[in-house]
């Protein structure tokens, strides 16, 4: 089967993650980061897209603790706003789910999920040092 030219959004995003790189898209003209991956910049339809590696730093924009029946453990679901501007659904690890608060500074890490990888976050330690990738 012939490959059609142009960006293949999810395929490329997950391939970057597999290489350990957290990349998001932006328009070369507009310059504003967006997530999830798309074939065009949302709102403008611009297709002059490029991938760039984000800092991985972000802030918890919204958070919830999903309560489950034991023995399964309650878990966090959060919306994280990347320093580059885009927002994504994720979870905050290394901290009790109820201790995650809006405004908390966090740092991304790439973890395996099913056949691909995904991006989760952990609190940025005091002093701002990076949290190691698992």
């Amino acid at each position, binding site marked *: 089967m012939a490959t059609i030219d142009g960006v293949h959004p999810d395929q490329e995003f997950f391939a970057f993650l597999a290489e350990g790189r957290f990349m998001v898209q932006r328009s070369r003209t507009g310059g504003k980061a967006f997530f999830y991956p798309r074939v065009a910049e949302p709102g403008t339809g611009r297709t002059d897209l490029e991938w760039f590696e984000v800092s991985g730093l972000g802030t918890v924009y919204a*958070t919830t*603790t*999903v*309560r489950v029946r034991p023995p399964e453990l309650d878990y966090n*679901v*959060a919306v994280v706003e990347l320093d580059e501007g885009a*927002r994504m659904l994720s*979870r905050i690890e290394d901290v009790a789910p109820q201790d995650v608060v809006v405004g908390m500074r966090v740092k991304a890490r790439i973890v395996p999920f099913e056949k691909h990888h*995904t991006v989760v976050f952990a609190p940025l330690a005091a002093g701002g040092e990076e949290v190691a990738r698992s």
Partner: protein
Amino acid sequence: MTYTRRNPAAVIGAATFGMGEAPGFTSPDLAARASLAALAQAGISLSQVDGVFIAFPDDFLSGLSFAEYLGIRPKLTNNNRTGGSAFLTHMNVAAHALAAGEIDVALIAYGSNQRTGHGGHVSAAAPNPHEKPFRPRLPISAYALAASRHMYEYGTTRDDFFAVVKSAREWAMLNPDAFMRKPVTRDEYYASRMVSDPFCVMDCCLVTDGAAAIVMVRKDWVDRRPAAYLLGLGEATDHYQIAQMPDMTTSAAKFSGERAFAQAGIGPDDVDVVELYDAFTINTIMFLEDLGFCKKGEGGAFVSSGAIAPGGTLPVNTNGGGLSCVHPGMYGLFTVVEAYRQLTGAAGDRQISGAEIAVAHGNGGFLSSQVTAVLGGAATQ
């Protein structure tokens, strides 16, 4: 006051059926019973229906299946699916089709046996690859996330959420059709099981059976029967998944409301009764703000003042809402039925005396679709 929609569509029949638990009925059975009741009220025969509008949660072709069930051959079917607001989007299409003369009688219906039939919420969409790893309990977690942001930005509290619960319950206690009619205390609220923080079970809408239907015609079709006139209707959407919501404390109801009020030529101060899609407690607070009934950020204080409860300054969700009356998967049409009842003096013990203007507001997805209808009683024509 002036009303700017010319030859407005009018609701001349509005009915519910199977409220709460209706074992032994399928979803189409329930929707058909509500439809027949609404048509009887309107004095219109089934064979006169030439526009069918419906959206079952688990049937993507329900415009076809429901017309077939009724045994009619409509000129127009519409199965637009925006979540629970769908039925107010159907009213918009119906009003235009009526005004254009394409159809003469629109039947808008919904029914679900989700409580007794298969006992659970039906998901409308496949999981998104960028959300699936995080297992949000949808739709609850999406609204809980929005609530967390509202608490952070505006100091909204769980006490405010409880005020919404209590108000809805107090209205439900006046409604014999409501599913939950026992008084609720603050202690019970705080003892209620947490589901997705900050929400406990009581912050979430009911899971019930139930059906609703309305019949819409052009104003010039209205005889001496009670009618509610569609003075304005605005739709708006600004995202689907919750992480894509531009501002998680302000919904697109700001825009749907502005459009609906502009069409009607009125403002929030002119409204006598408000029916909001309260899938979760945050909805009531956010929509009151976004529709202009109070300032942004002051919704919590507004509901905690008792303003929206029986005896308050702004009657909201007078049937008990999705929190205490009925919530069979999609609630939007029930806001319209209750608005119709209030405007036609048919609301029994919960009747708002002299109600002339009502707002029915639908919400769909994850605060994603917002649809506002402004309806008026006979005095507005």
